[in-house]
């Protein structure tokens, strides 16, 4: 695919043009940290960031999303009938998404877009979105993307990859969607012959800066029941306070809860993010809770990401190594440590490999 050179003086003008035909989302610095927001006309994304506090998953999969609306007023002819809520699936673009977060969408897609079930809200929003990645020249010490199936210049899940070459951006069009957006922006100057080499060398440098890694090679071979019964879960789960930080910040956590909310004579049916860390997540109507303790819940989170997902999809782990859960966990539970315990677990050695 071709590489376009975007001079930094053409940046602002191109972004304005993109906004003529796309709703544009990008990282914006708030009071304390960067997060993705829909940009107002002429508002620029701030790409001077390592990564956003929250993942960009909410651009396709909002924390709260109304699916249906209904009236409970019997005077209305269509009372008690669920009607599709108005939606805006016009083209949207995410400018500045990190490659790890973009690859997370492919991973979530395996759950929301299957031969048996298709989540229409997620799929339509996803298909409406063009992903313009900003390659990561300076990964954090908590980033372990290169051993989690992604990388600072990983192209999977992206339509365009931008590489910061100092005085200009190199924009590599990866898909037709990406080419279309570059045309809309008016960015059309083909980069000189050496650009691919330059991108390749930036990529090598960035990958060399990744200082953190995990081993996942043995996860598939481990017996599920043996991992489930491993003695280290007491140690792993002890500090956990069962908040939703890790799951809500995670770009790959996809669980949701459906709720009806009425106000007066009208109501909505919506889906809201949910978290396997919450006791209510698995509470049965009978009052019985199959995951009644925090050990159950912490084990579920790690088993899902690092074992059940691995076995079900045969496509790596349910994690892209963005490191958000490590950086924001209030009690410093570290998925890298847990992954290593699981990957190296030997029930015969049995002495708890904790300390």
């Amino acid at each position, binding site marked *: 695919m071709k590489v376009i050179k975007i001079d930094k003086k053409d940046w602002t003008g191109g972004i304005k043009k993109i906004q003529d035909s796309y709703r544009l989302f990008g990282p914006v610095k708030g009071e*304390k940290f960067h997060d993705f927001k829909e940009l107002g006309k002429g508002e620029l994304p701030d790409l001077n960031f390592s990564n956003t506090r929250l993942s960009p998953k909410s651009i396709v999969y909002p924390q*709260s999303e109304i699916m249906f609306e209904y009236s409970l007023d019997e005077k209305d002819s269509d009372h008690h009938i669920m009607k599709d809520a108005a939606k805006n699936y016009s083209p949207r673009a995410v400018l500045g998404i990190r490659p790890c977060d973009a690859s997370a969408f492919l991973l979530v897609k395996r759950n929301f877009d299957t031969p048996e079930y298709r989540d229409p809200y997620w799929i339509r929003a996803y298909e409406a979105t063009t992903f313009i990645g900003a390659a990561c020249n300076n990964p954090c010490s908590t980033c372990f993307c290169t051993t989690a199936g992604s990388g600072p210049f990983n192209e999977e899940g992206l339509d365009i990859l931008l590489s910061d070459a100092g005085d200009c951006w190199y924009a590599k069009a990866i898909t037709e969607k990406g080419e279309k957006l570059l045309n809309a922006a008016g960015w059309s100057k083909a980069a000189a012959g050496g650009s691919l080499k330059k991108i390749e060398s930036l990529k090598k440098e960035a990958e060399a800066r990744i200082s953190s890694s995990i081993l996942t090679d043995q996860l598939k071979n481990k017996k599920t029941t043996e991992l489930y019964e491993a003695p280290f879960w007491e140690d792993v789960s002890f500090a956990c306070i069962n*908040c939703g930080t890790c799951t809500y910040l995670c770009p790959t956590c996809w669980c949701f809860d459906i709720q009806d909310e009425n106000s007066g004579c009208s109501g909505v049916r919506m889906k809201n993010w949910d978290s396997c860390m919450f006791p209510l997540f698995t509470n049965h109507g009978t009052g019985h809770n199959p995951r009644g303790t925090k050990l159950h819940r912490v084990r579920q989170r790690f088993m899902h990401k690092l074992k059940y997902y691995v076995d079900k999809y045969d496509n790596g782990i349910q994690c892209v190594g963005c490191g958000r859960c490590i950086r924001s966990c*209030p*009690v410093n539970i570290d998925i890298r440590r847990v992954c290593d315990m699981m990957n190296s677990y030997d029930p015969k050695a049995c002495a708890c490999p904790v300390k």
Partner: protein
Amino acid sequence: MLGYIDKIREISKRLLDEGRVDMVIGFRKGTMPMMNEPAFVKTPGEVSTLVWDSNCGINLANYLTDRKEKIGVIAKGCDSRNIVTHLLENKTKRDKLVIIGVPCKGMIDRRRITAMFDDEVREVTEEGDVITVKGTGFEKKLKKAEILQDNCSKCIHRNPVLYDELAAPLVEEQKDIDRYADVRLIEAMSPQEKWQYFEDLLSPCIRCYACRNACPLCYCPTCFVDEARPQWVGKSQDPIDIRTFHFLRAYHCAGRCTDCGACERACPVGIKIRQFTSKLNRDCLDMFGWEAGLSLDQRPPLDTFKPGDPGDFIK
């Protein structure tokens, strides 16, 4: 405070050796700068994993709730006050605990330090009152007193109020501290300004409940926001539901909050949650001369009645 650790390990080892406790609850070294992880040790051989420094801000009383074992627990001033509150509220038993008191000199504010630098902070070390912050290509020394967690900078109960062992000599308490300047600022606002202030304060909330779950006071078997039959509070990002959660939680902590700062420390989006509890703490001090968790001999003001209690609110 680094010097405390040998003594903490020595006491912990002795308690485990003598079989006086089944486990000691403390901290092990974190995997990130300025973070330690609450952890337990069950054998004398493991005590070397225990650490103590200016990054032990988590309130360990939170890990005692309803546990049945005999526990040695490491307790700085605020933890010890929450242990007292736990004892008053029957969430733990005195004879199940050996409290290893740690006279505290304050915990450093991880978020503030992170925000001071454009590049990632990769290493933080401390020596006495000097904190050294390092990243790729930079190094800066900071005075600990200037980068304390806000609650620690206002703390007047650094020494544990209840202990069986002591990890170090008691420290001098801070005096002449203006603890409620923030409260006065908000009190001086007009109702509209207050409304806007709290709207802005809560706008980043993602309802992860880290504030609630990090709080040793929040041990209800089913929190009102989790009540499902009937459901009390909506689950979406509706600002009314978010407000309801924060306001009710704050009131539920009235007369019980020790201002340990666990809620603010835990919040992944940096909400200053103590803006709510500080006001309630000051009201309890003004109206009842009460600070939570200082004594086992007195009932908290909101679960008892005295003829002299202020009654101006009854019209």
